[in-house]
């Protein structure tokens, strides 16, 4: 047995000749979105100063006013407190959605009849306009924290269910037979084969659900303002008071929260399975 060991991966990367090319391609990945960003800011200014007359300028305050509004100490603390609460609701909602989603999918993967019985409801959950249910949820569970969590979970749940199920079911048949030949029981197959094999799909689902959890938390907030509301209620307050610069600042913070949570779960997924699976971040 004389096998030449393959060069360690790090050396292989070194063998790539073109560092120049690499840095250029890096510029090429960053430059276009930056240009688009600058163009958007340009359009924004154009709308503010060229399209809108002074009386209607509050509809689209210029970018620098939005930035100034954000850094106003009172507004900033208001936004940050709301951000903290929304983040907390989103994370708790996401955690619950992950647990329910995975358990639901595992149950369906264990028997065809369970899947046939339960999958339609996952689809229904995905299809019904949650907003139509929101008043009912407030009616039943009060207009505080629990209702916000429930809305968040309902919005974030489906990708967890469908992705986990897909992952569990896409195990290589040969690997299944390998386990079958050793007469492995269902639990062993689940824990040693199906679940690990499903992890990339589960993490991909988690990332989608994470983005939706932020949406859910803000939607919940928007409707349920008792207790300690977050970004959603801040948005509606600023709208009601025509404080448009603050409104814009809050919208950007909400958007950034979504992006940050999406990126965070992308990173977690990469850390968890990137060793053996090409998890695109």
């Amino acid at each position: 047995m004389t096998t030449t060991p393959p060069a360690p991966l790090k050396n292989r990367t070194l063998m790539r000749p073109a560092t120049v090319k690499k840095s250029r391609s890096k510029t090429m990945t960053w430059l276009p979105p930056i240009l688009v960003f600058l163009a958007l800011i340009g359009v924004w200014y154009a709308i503010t100063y060229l399209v809108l007359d002074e009386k209607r300028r509050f509809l689209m305050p210029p970018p620098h006013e939005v930035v100034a509004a954000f850094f106003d100490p009172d507004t900033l603390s208001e936004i940050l407190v709301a951000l903290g609460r929304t983040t907390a609701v989103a994370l708790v909602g996401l955690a619950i959605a992950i647990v329910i989603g995975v358990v639901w999918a595992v149950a369906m993967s264990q028997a065809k009849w369970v899947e046939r019985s339960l999958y339609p409801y996952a689809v229904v959950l995905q299809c019904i306009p949650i907003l139509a249910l929101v008043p009912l949820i407030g009616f039943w569970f009060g207009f505080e924290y629990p209702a916000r969590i429930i809305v968040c979970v309902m919005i974030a749940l489906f990708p967890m269910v469908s992705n986990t199920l897909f992952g569990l079911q896409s195990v290589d048949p040969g690997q299944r037979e390998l386990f079958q030949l050793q007469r492995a029981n269902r639990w062993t197959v689940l824990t040693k084969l199906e679940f690990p094999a499903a992890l990339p799909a589960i993490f991909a689902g988690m990332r989608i659900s994470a983005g939706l959890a932020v949406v859910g938390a803000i939607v919940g907030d928007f409707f349920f303002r008792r207790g300690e509301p977050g970004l959603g209620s801040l948005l509606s307050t600023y709208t009601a008071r025509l404080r448009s610069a603050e409104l814009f600042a809050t919208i950007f913070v909400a958007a950034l929260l979504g992006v940050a949570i999406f990126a965070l779960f992308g990173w977690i997924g990469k850390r968890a399975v990137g060793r053996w699976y090409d998890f695109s971040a």
Partner: protein
Amino acid sequence: MTIAPPEVAPATTTGQLLHFEDVAMTFPNGTTALSGVDLTVNRGEFVTVVGPSGCGKSTLLRIASGLTPATEGVTQVDTSRIGYVFQDATLLPWRDVQSNVELLAELNGVPKAKRRATAKQAIDLVGLSGFEKHLPRTLSGGMKMRTSLARSLTLDPELFLFDEPFGALDEITRERLNDELIKLFTEQQFAGLFITHSVSEAVYLSTKVVVMSGRPGKIVDTFPVEFPLPRDPEIRFTAEFAELCGKVSHALREGHH
């Protein structure tokens, strides 16, 4: 890995490990994959089945391993220690070489220390020492197959089933693995049932070549191979080897109407 329980006869004595009598297999959709197959694999034998693709060769192994029951005939398997090497390496990508090789022992509830030692031995046998911590994605096709082979070796099989294991490898790797497999066969005293569509691989590896025809798969001819074991790689270039390959190829073509 050579430690056999005392009641097991050494490979030199004959004794049947696998016996098919008039075995037939018809799938629920009505396709007949095999019909009237009689085949015996004894201790000390390495039987290779060659046949065109889709002739039911793999079905034969699935029946032997118990993955799929035959629809007709008698299937008798006289050992519970069966190794099965699939067409793909079927390694679990999240486990490194060491823990992939340990998998079967782990599934059979072997304590950690013992399965670690067994796996280590098997890894040595297939020449992968030093690669224990490597993940499958960093291995070449040949090394993946070696890992898969090592994984089955941990079962200390008496009967080893191979389903075209080297079919996807390049010629050089395939020949090298053939040499190593025949060496393992000579040393480890398992009986082999090997499926391939390569005539020279069949002749080189086996003590008996069985030729199958397709649709429905049945055995059309059997050739004993009497080159001494372990095989000298050079026999591939002898006239006798070429002649036997010719006969097998001829039988293959005859059966392929």
